[in-house]
C-alpha cells in the first residue's frame, strides 16, 4: 500500500498527459505511414488471433454446408452444366472477336491489355468493428508483396483498395465505405462519373454515382460501370457494378443514381489483390515515352 501512495499523480494530470499523447499521435500520422511500430506489434499479436478465429469460422461454415442435400446438389450441377455449355459457346465467339481486336489494335498500335493484371489471393480475416466504416483485414502484407493503393477484387468485381500495410496483414477499404471515392465509367457509352460509397445506402447494399454528364447518350438501368482511365489509384476497367437507378439532376447538366455493386460485402471470404498499382503503370508508361 505504501508503494502505491508514493507515486500518485492526480488523475487530472494523467488525463492531460494522455490527451497530449493522443494529440501528438494525431499529428504524427502525417509523417508516419500507417501505425508505424504499432502496426508491427499488432501484426504479431492481434492479427494471428484474428486469423485463427476466422479459420475456425470458415471451417464451421464449411461443415454446415456439407449437410446440403444430394438432390439440391444434382439440380445445381445440372444448372451449372448448362451454364458451362452456354459460356463455352460465348467464349469461342468472344475469343474470335479478341483475335480480331488484337489485330486491329496492332494496326492502331494500341497494344495495352488492361484485362490481365497479376493477382494474389488472400483471405479476409477480420472486419471493421465500428458501425461507421466498412473496411476489412486480409492475411497478406508487405512480406507477400502487398503495397498501399493496390486494388482488391472479389469474384469478378472491385472490392476495395489497400489503405494500410503491415508485415503480415493489410487493411482494405471497401467500395461501399463512406470515404470511398472512385472515378468510374459507364461501359457502353464511356461517359465518366464519380462513384462514392455512402453510409446511408450501406444497409441496402448500394452505392451512389454522380456527375455523369447529361448528354445524348442513353443509359439504361442494368448497364455496367467500370473504373475509368483517368483514376489515379484505380486501374482501368475493373468492374464496379450495375446501374440500378438513374435520374437527371435538377441542374439538367448531370445525371446521378445508384449502383448495385458486383461484390457481396456481407459475406466476403476470399479476395484477389492486383499486384500492380496505377502509379507504377503510369510511371512505366511515362519512362517509356521519355525513352522514345
Amino acid at each position: 500500500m505504501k508503494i502505491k501512495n508514493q507515486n500518485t499523480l492526480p488523475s487530472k494530470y494523467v488525463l492531460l498527459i494522455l490527451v497530449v499523447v493522443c494529440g501528438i499521435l494525431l499529428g504524427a500520422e502525417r509523417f508516419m505511414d500507417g501505425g508505424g511500430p504499432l502496426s508491427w506489434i499488432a501484426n504479431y499479436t492481434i492479427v494471428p488471433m484474428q486469423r485463427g478465429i476466422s479459420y475456425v469460422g470458415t471451417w464451421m461454415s464449411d461443415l454446415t454446408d456439407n449437410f446440403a442435400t444430394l438432390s439440391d446438389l444434382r439440380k445445381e450441377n445440372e444448372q451449372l452444366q448448362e451454364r458451362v455449355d452456354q459460356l463455352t459457346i460465348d467464349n469461342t465467339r468472344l475469343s474470335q472477336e479478341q483475335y480480331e481486336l488484337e489485330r486491329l489494335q496492332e494496326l492502331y498500335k494500341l497494344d495495352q491489355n488492361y484485362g490481365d493484371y497479376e493477382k494474389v489471393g488472400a483471405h479476409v480475416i477480420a472486419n471493421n468493428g465500428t458501425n461507421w466504416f466498412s473496411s476489412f483485414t486480409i492475411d497478406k502484407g508487405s512480406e507477400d508483396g502487398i503495397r498501399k493503393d493496390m486494388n482488391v477484387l472479389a469474384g469478378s468485381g472491385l472490392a476495395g483498395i489497400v489503405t494500410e500495410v503491415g508485415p503480415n496483414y493489410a487493411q482494405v477499404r471497401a467500395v461501399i465505405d463512406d470515404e470511398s471515392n472512385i472515378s468510374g465509367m459507364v461501359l457502353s457509352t464511356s461517359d465518366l462519373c464519380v462513384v462514392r460509397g455512402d453510409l446511408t445506402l450501406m444497409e441496402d447494399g448500394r452505392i451512389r454515382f454522380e456527375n455523369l454528364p447529361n448528354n445524348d447518350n442513353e443509359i439504361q438501368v442494368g448497364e455496367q460501370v467500370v473504373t475509368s482511365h483517368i483514376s489515379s489509384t484505380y486501374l482501368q476497367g475493373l468492374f464496379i457494378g450495375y446501374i440500378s437507378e438513374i435520374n437527371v439532376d435538377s441542374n439538367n447538366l448531370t445525371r446521378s443514381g445508384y449502383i448495385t455493386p458486383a461484390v457481396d460485402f456481407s459475406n466476403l471470404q476470399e479476395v484477389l489483390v492486383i499486384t500492380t498499382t496505377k502509379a507504377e503503370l503510369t510511371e512505366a508508361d511515362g519512362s517509356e515515352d521519355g525513352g522514345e
Partner: protein
Amino acid sequence: MKRKIITACFIIVCFLLQSTVFSKLQFASVRPNLMIVLTSAFGFMRGRKTGMAVGFSCGLLMDVCWGSVLGFYTLILTVIGYLNGSFKRLFFDEDIKLPLGLIAGSELAYGLTVYVCLFMMRGDFHFGYYLTHVIMPELVYTILVTIVLYQVILHVNRKLEAEEQRSASRFV
C-alpha cells in the same frame, strides 16, 4: 499484476469478438460496441486511472486496426474512461441502473463524437438518418450485450477484490 493481466485479456478477447464474431451477429446491420462497455465498466468500478488506462488501450487497438487516423478513438475512449471514473463514488455492486445509464451515455457520446468529427466535418448533414440508423440501434444492441458482459466483468471484479483483501490482511 494478476488484475492487469486479466484486464488485458478482457480487452483482447472483446476486441477479437467484435472484429470477427459480431460481424456475423449483426442486427439491423449494426454490431454492439464492446470497447465502450469495457472502458465504461472498468471506469466506474475501479476509478479514473483504470478507466483511462483501459480506454487508452482499447482506443489504440481500434486506431491501429480499424481507424484511419491514429489517436482519434484513443482520445475519445480515454476521456470516456476518465468521466466514467468520476462516478466511482456512486457505484454499488447490486445496482444495475447506474452502469446501464453510464454505458448508454458513453455510447451516445461516442456516437455523436464520431458523427461530428468524421462525418459532419466532411459536409455530411444526414444527422437524423445516422441517429436513427446507426447511433440508436448501436446503443440498444450494446445495452443488450452489456447485460451479459457486465455480469461477467462484475463477477471477475468481485473475485479479484476478495482475493486482494485476503492477501492484504495477511500482510498486515
